[in-house]
């Protein structure tokens, strides 16, 4: 089963997204801040990471940078989730190494499409 690490500090969002991902057949593990996200990514090596950008302890940008800097986790695709829709967010996400980018509130079908594209073997 495909394992997704969801890094999200907002409880409602976390609950909602995890339930819907589970309903769609994914195994979901949860991290509630950036540091925990990085630690769990290294420890569990999920198939994909959904990373909120506004996180306590260390933010999503930095967390992604650390994930991409680690040899063990470098190849794990990261989709950035952000409520920020200001100019440059997309570039910033690409710059820190995110594979894709989506804005909140999450449109579940769109997100599922992006997840599927990244998990397809040989994608890229």
């Amino acid at each position: 089963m495909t394992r997704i690490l969801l890094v999200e500090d907002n409880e409602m969002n976390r609950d909602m997204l995890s339930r819907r991902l589970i309903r769609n057949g994914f195994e979901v593990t949860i991290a509630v801040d950036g540091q925990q996200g990085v630690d769990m990514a290294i420890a569990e090596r999920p198939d994909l990471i959904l990373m909120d950008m506004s996180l306590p302890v260390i933010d999503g940008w930095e967390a992604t940078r650390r994930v991409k800097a680690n040899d063990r986790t470098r190849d794990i695709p990261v989709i950035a989730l952000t409520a920020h829709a200001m100019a440059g967010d997309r570039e910033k996400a690409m710059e820190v190494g995110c594979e894709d980018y989506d804005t909140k509130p999450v449109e579940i079908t769109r997100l599922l499409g992006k997840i599927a594209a990244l998990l397809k073997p040989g994608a890229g």
Partner: protein
Amino acid sequence: MTNAADGRPHWRRSFKTRLMVLVSLAVVLPALFTCLILGIQLNRQARNLFANGLAANLETFALVLEDVERNVSDSLFRMASDNTLQAALDAANQAQLKAYVDGQREALGIAFIAVYNADYRNVAFSGAEKDAVIGQWRFAAKGEGSGGDCMVVAEEAEQAEQLVRCNDTVYRVWQVQIFRTVGQGQGSQLLGYVVGGSRVANTGLIGELLSRRIIHPLIWADGELVYSNIAFPQSTGPASLDGVAHEYDVDQTAYLGVAKALRVESHKLAYGVVAPLAPLRETLLRSLLTVAGVGLFVVAVTLIAISLRATRLLRPIEQLRLGAARIGGGDLSQRISIKSGDEFEALADQFNDMTSRLEGSYSDLEKKVEDRTRQLEVASQHKSQFLANMSHELRTPLNAIIGYSEILQEDVTDLGQQNLIPDLKKIESAGRHLLGLINNILDLSKIEAGKMDVFIEPVDIQPLIKEVLSIVKPLAEKSGNAIEVICPDDIGSFRSDQIKVKQCLLNLMSNANKFTSKGTLTLAAAREDNGGVCFRVSDTGVGMTEEQLGRLFQAFSQADVSTTKRFGGTGLGLAITKHFCALLGGDVTVESTPDVGSTFIIKLPDQAAAPAAAAESPAPTPADGRPTVLVVDDDPAVRSLLAKSLEKEGYRIISAGNGVEALALAREHRPQAITLDVLMPQMDGWDALKELKADSALRDVPVIMVTVLNERGMAIPLGASDFVTKPVDRQRLTAILRNYCTNPSGASILVVEDDLPTRETLCRSLASMGYTAHAAVNGRDGLAWLSKHPRPSLILLDLMMPEMDGFEFLRELRKQSAFVNVPVIVVTAKELTAEDIRVLNGQTEKIITKDHTYLAELAAAVRGSLAHQSARAEERVAG
């Protein structure tokens, strides 16, 4: 340095010139007038003097004539009373008489002497032409009547005088009676007559006149010219006989002459004196020339003196002008030093005072502007931050509302509680509506802050319209509206921002739906003649009046305040639509009739971000392959100095003296770089820079400002690439130029790109930067090109291509030793994965994402890469 601040004087005539002209007129005109009057006066006086001289001569002439007459008549009297003559006459001794008159004639020097007896018979004759004299003179009637051969002028008179002509010679003849006194009281006895004749113009007389300096005497007898030693016309008689001077024309030479006459019996003997006027005129002319020469000399000396003086007088004005020019040019530290002690010094002092105050308030102002700008920047940052936070804070709970209502819908479906679904849908729909409003407000804020991103990509029109319809259809059904779609099958795609176009169409469609019930909404798409795309959204709704149309596209404004109550909405949709269309290079317009309906028309270009330079021809390549630099400075000295030093560095130089000329030359030659002076007449450097940056064909040409002051703060925001201060540090300038001008002959660039418009855009912008661009349509084509051509300086590579993509091309390229080091810049629209980036890293110089600003980034990257290469090449040469 001063040249820059100087500014060229471009008046037509200097004050000094005008002053000189004025003075010249004031001096020369009276002088000319004086000369004229003087000349006329002098001429008249000289002529009078000359005439007076002639009159004196004439007087002398008269005296000489009188002398001659007296001499002859006295001699004849003496002869008549001479006993020797009387005795010889008594004796009728002809031989003795002949000897006597011969002796007398010789002594007197006259033409002839004749002696007659009382019967008028000639008894003796001495002189020439006896026969002629005796034979012709028949003027004494008595003598003739008595058969004598004598001439008697007047029988009774003791003495008589006559003028006679004989054989073309005119003689003056005197006759004296010969008496003998006979005893006391017996009276006297007439013995005969003695007659003497003298040529009127005899040599004695002429000699006498000459000795008295009468050079050209004239003698007329009875109006006929008898004597003249010049070619005096025979027919010309004396003009008057009253001694008044007259001018005569003698053989085309002007003479002045006077004449008088004396009567000899019934004849008139006129005598005159003439003299040529030429010497007089020559003398007169010489005098006048002398006067004029002296006058001119005086005028010239005066003018030179005034000129020197004027230069000194005008120096303060020139100083003031130069100072004002420098201050006008922005150098407020300038002070003018004039120590003339007059009004000019006072003016300079006031000028300096003014400049000081100006400098003071200017620096105050600058400080204030700086402070205010900083405050504004801080405020703007706060605002942006606030918006970001608001966005997050508002969206998070909304996220939950929408998300949970969706989850609940799924859950109740699973539980079979279908009756709850409509309520849950209402919650979700309300949440989405709220999200839409928040998004609109955020969009508008971003547009106003200039932070709205535009992401240009190929947009397929038919799928786009389908997507819009799928969203609008449920809304339309709710309002009972039918939807009609007109879209040709072959409409294809265009390059624009898909999300924004979709949002615009959604805005217009939902708007149309909002104001229409039980009507028809029409969405039509069509190609324009110019290749652009036109969307028309029509409804059969309430429509709008002219007045309402005027306020339509303003933010927060609906056609009518009351409509807000009736139809809801924030009124932001149309404002956003208008902004989006403008961002994409298009426009939105509206046509409407109240109660009939409205039609909104969006027109978008085929290439949203394509540079407007598309229509321009590529830059002409310099004939000799040297990079061209346009030097713009109004001072010819600065121009030639820069040109010389840059030509030494291997640049081809064209130069212009002002902004207007510079623009024309830049358009014609497309230089690789421009150095631009700031202070110039007509159009200054800043204006020229703005024009250059507004011209799509020249926008990419780097401009280096040459300023007197350090104006980086002004230069860089206006689009200048760099700036140097005057006096120009040549090394710094050449270093800057080296960055911007790589030798185009050495820089050929291969563009590997499958998309035709992008390929053309890239080639064009490379050409406009002065490089030679070669195109290949995919990886395989690119490799084929490389096998047949010299190694290019750089390769621009797209990743997603048919046949052979960018990754494979790169692999193949690096396998060949010749191309291991060719720098590659990746230009792609692909969203790169970490794997992609890993593969590309180390093999490529830079990865540029195709967005709306990528061309500028690309230009910088290409220049940077080539400059880097040439620097490395230089190091190798040096090492």
